[in-house]
């Protein structure tokens, strides 16, 4: 018991090592938030373009969307990360955090796009017709009528995707980003005892994910007004 205490003391307090975790958390949160924002932007865009192009003469646009989704979903995240990093890093003085966020965002966008597409398709066709019959154009109807209802339906799936995203940022270490996982590994290599820092890191991820879950359930409840027939 004493030994365990000492191990965690070493991993957390000595040399102000908690600062390293905090720095790692900051990087992880930053990458996650940027990636979520980018993922939503890409996801909404791809989903809307995909759905609207599929019913028109511009089917090839929907083809491009599907190529993007297929490639991103069909290759490992870590390989994508390495490819994008080496692609951009050749131009030097790049910010690894931004590169990481962009990569995770592009990756998440493919999954978000499919979730949102399912959401849009779950809305009764009559809603689009009602919006259009009032003189709203396609984009306006999509934005004000279809998407708000679609997002409400897919919020749990979307929340799931964001939780996965936060956890997946733990591979960001491979592009020389000192995120939470990498910070824990550094500390482990200093103290010659890897387990305590990893457990601390795991606890930090758990707290972050639980926080996000809480946030999402508040959001879900707020959007639930006018629900159910």
């Amino acid at each position, binding site marked *: 018991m004493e030994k365990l205490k000492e191990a965690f003391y070493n991993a957390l307090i000595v040399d102000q090592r908690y600062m390293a975790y905090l720095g790692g958390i900051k990087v992880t949160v930053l990458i996650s938030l940027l990636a979520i924002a980018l993922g939503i932007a890409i996801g909404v865009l791809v989903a809307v373009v995909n759905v609207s192009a599929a019913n028109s003469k511009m089917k090839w646009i929907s083809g491009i969307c599907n190529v993007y989704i297929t490639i991103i979903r069909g290759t490992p995240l870590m390989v994508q990360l390495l490819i994008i990093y080496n692609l951009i890093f050749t131009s030097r003085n790049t910010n690894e955090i931004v590169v990481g966020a962009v990569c995770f965002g592009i990756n998440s966008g493919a999954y978000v796009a499919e979730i949102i597409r399912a959401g849009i398709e779950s809305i*009764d066709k*009559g*809603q689009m*017709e*009602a*919006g*259009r*019959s*009032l*003189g*709203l*154009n396609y984009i*306006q109807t999509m934005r*004000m*009528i279809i998407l*708000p*209802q679609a997002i*409400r339906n897919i919020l749990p799936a979307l929340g799931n995707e964001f939780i996965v995203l936060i956890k997946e940022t733990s591979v960001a270490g491979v592009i020389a980003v000192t995120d939470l996982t990498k910070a824990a590994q550094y500390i482990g290599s200093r103290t010659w005892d890897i387990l305590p820092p990893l457990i601390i890191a795991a606890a930090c991820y758990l707290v972050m994910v639980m926080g996000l879950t809480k946030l999402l359930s508040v959001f879900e409840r707020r*959007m639930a*007004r*006018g*629900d*159910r*027939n």
Partner: protein
Amino acid sequence: MIETRNLQKAFGSHKVLDGIDITIKKGEKVVVIGPSGSGKSTFLRCLNLLEVPTGGEIWFEGNNITDKKTDINKMRQKMGMVFQQFNLFPHLSVMENITLAPVKLGMMNQQEAEQKALELLKRIGLTEKADAYPNQLSGGQKQRIAIVRALAMNPDVMLFDEPTSALDPEMVGEVLDLMTQLAEEGMTMVVVTHEMRFAKKVATRILFIDEGKIVEENVPDEFFDNPKHPRLKEFLSKIL
């Protein structure tokens, strides 16, 4: 006001509308009846291009709306439509349902739109439902709100696509009453319905559509009392 010339609509090789020619004048109340699958709903939905015709032309207030260059959104602002399934926006309150389009399309500011909405709600006796959500309303209330939502745009013509078919029987009356009122006020209306009493009372002209063609059209009295085409005779004998 509305004129169709050789209007055609096909889904794949299946011809739903096979050359419909009709002129609807301002103030007319045209009721469209016909057996199910006859194309009557498709005809109505073509009039505001919810279904894009595969042939022929539709003219509305001097504009050829089947022409790609015509801004169909502008045209639709003048054509209200009421659906069988109401299609209220479930995530918006009754007030927001009514004011959304007029405000977003820049026809009124929020205040004017809300005032207009309240006037319309008062007229149908649902003022207290302004802040309710559609799921808190009965079918009849939903449909009357849907009619009001279309009226808030000050349309020149109202299209009704079987407005009472999804309602419980005891709620049909309140919706038909509202439609009758509208008719009496001089609104131009095109109504697809199975309510023969309503047709008899309100219509200025009745069309009988079968297999994508107008088989017979006449004023109500003649239409019901003296049908000429054998298919119409058969249809009337089944439903009356």
